[in-house]
């Protein structure tokens, strides 16, 4: 009790001396500075420790990927590979039935085509919502936004049934019966995710921020909506457009559940599924599995490092993934 009250007195006295700190004795000033510096050191230590924990799995993944089969199964494990086995990467690359190259190309195709379609449909829809006057504009926009509330998992089952019933595809007749529709095709993998309320919302907000004067000016020159959208609005809202591209691309590259449900041929499956089937086949060969995992993880991480500022800004502005 006594000690506490003394301590409180001391704190009170230092507190009250604060405004006069410049004129008071230099020793108490130094003490404060020293304490602040110690606080900073602890802060940095905590943050660095946290960052180390966050990154450790990646370090371990890369480190394991460069070990030999014997070394990766050593107990206790070694922190760094004794003799980095770069050939593990070549082995992992060619190991799955059709090789990783095929999975990478599939993912690239799905990501590029899917993102392009998403961007195109998003741009035109956002333009209509932001710049055109028509009945039900607001109502339609609210309906589009409401689709964000429908959980993806609740759409998996009906969409699985639906893509099998698309008419005139995969041997289907006009009523969508008889064949397998878009099941097990690239189109079936891509189409359900194309229209994105998130992309439309983001682009609409960006378009609305551009003053009307620009439209009035080009209108005088007789330009159409189409010209205005492509020549004026898109160049002026490039950050928002790029954000849509980034999110679209990364979401497709990392996609797992929908391609798993919508396909069965390994030859069209994307890279995440390739990695899963590789882990089932060669699961005990952890040095190769970690090499394959690194190969799949690294492009995404490098891509992110280049664009992270824009990515984080987009995320904080709208706070939605995908």
């Amino acid at each position: 009790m006594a000690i506490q009250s003394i301590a409180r007195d001391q704190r009170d006295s230092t507190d009250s001396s604060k405004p006069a700190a410049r004129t008071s004795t230099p020793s108490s000033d130094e003490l404060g500075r020293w304490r602040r510096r110690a606080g900073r050191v602890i802060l940095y230590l905590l943050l660095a420790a946290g960052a180390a924990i966050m990154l450790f799995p990646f370090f371990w993944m890369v480190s394991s990927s460069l070990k030999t089969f014997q070394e990766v199964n050593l107990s206790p494990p070694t922190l760094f590979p004794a003799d980095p086995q770069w050939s593990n990467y070549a082995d992992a690359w060619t190991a799955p039935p059709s090789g990783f190259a095929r999975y990478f190309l599939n993912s690239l195709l799905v990501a590029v085509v899917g993102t392009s379609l998403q961007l195109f449909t998003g741009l035109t829809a956002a333009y209509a919502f932001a710049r055109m006057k028509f009945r039900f504009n607001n109502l339609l926009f609210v309906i589009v936004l409401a689709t964000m509330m429908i959980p993806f998992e609740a759409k998996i089952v009906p969409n699985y049934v639906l893509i099998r019933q698309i008419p005139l595809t995969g041997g289907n007749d006009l009523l969508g019966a008889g064949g397998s529709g878009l099941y097990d095709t690239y189109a079936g993998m891509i189409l359900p995710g194309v229209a994105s309320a998130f992309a439309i919302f983001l682009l609409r907000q960006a378009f609305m921020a551009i003053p009307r004067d620009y439209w009035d000016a080009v209108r005088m020159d007789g330009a159409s909506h189409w010209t205005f959208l492509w020549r004026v609005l898109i160049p002026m809202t490039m950050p928002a457009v790029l954000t849509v591209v980034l999110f679209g691309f990364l979401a497709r590259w990392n996609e797992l559940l929908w391609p798993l449900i919508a396909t069965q041929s390994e030859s069209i499956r994307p890279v995440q599924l390739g990695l899963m089937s590789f882990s089932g086949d060669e699961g005990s060969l952890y040095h190769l599995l970690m090499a394959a995992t690194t190969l799949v993880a690294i492009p995404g991480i490098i891509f992110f490092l280049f664009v992270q500022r824009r990515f984080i800004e987009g995320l904080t502005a709208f706070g939605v993934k995908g």
Partner: protein
Amino acid sequence: MAVDLSIRARRRRMERIWLPALYLAPTLVLLGLFDIYPIFLSAWISLWRWGIKAEEFIGFDNYTRIFEELGSKPGGAPGEVGQSLLVTAFYVLGTVPATIAIAFVIANMLNARVRFLAPLRTAYFIPYITSTVAAGLAFVWLLNPQVGVANATLKAFGLPAQQWLLDPEPVVPKLFSIAGIGWSDQLPAFLAGPSVALTCVMVFSIWNTLGFAVVIILAGLTTIDTQVKEAARMDGANSWQMATRITIPLVSPTLFFLLVVSTIRSFQSFNEIFVLTSGGGYGAGAGSPLDTTLTLPVLIFRHLYERPGSVGFAAALSMLLFVLLLGVTLLQFRFAERRVHYD
């Protein structure tokens, strides 16, 4: 009816109807087909016994089956649906508050005008952008019971090795026995807590989504007027008072947003469980061990993908998930939003 539209009226019609329709058509068709119609289709499928296609109309039998599998089996253990609801509840309650709390602390530390803010933020964010398959397999490897780092670390401290993702034992009795306290089997299952395997998945999930929460909270923190904080400090507020009276109320809209978004996402968790319990070649399949990581989405997947002929039941389960999510979100808006401070 010979209507002679003047050029002007025709142009107006073009601008007010056909042009917007053209611009909106692709989006409305795709959203209607793959986002809105599926909810109705799902309700329809759920009334059928449905394999690859419709087989027999069975009315509400799939929903009755949900209730049957909700209750206990002869042995006293819950049925698959009951088990999946319990696991989902553990998962949501175990990941969402913890993620937001940890992220709040880290975001506040990062907000203290630290140097190297950008690289530190990136370090916390990288797990979030890495594919769940890659990050999950890295965790499977860390937690390998034979040669994983986790067990090597325990061994270094003289502690017994664990089975991690293969361990179906509930975590609370396990901790009690380590502390030397007994546990009665008479106690209800939910008190025993999640299995060790599910706890591992939850730790992964926190690790994986932490960066997202940090970035969102950090953005909220930077909008706080520094003068408000300065004034409070001048009035002699200590750091606890600063946190509870100033910072938390001012970022409460952000925290509320995070709560809603994270809860929805956590209810839908599939990928992390699929990868951690069936990836890496030693797990027994999604939902293992002994169904202790069987969330509702994993159960839907099981019926859709692994069990032929139960697409109708999977659709009924999807409807359950949809209704549950809608309910939880509405409840959050009702109760949490009242406590949120908007400026």
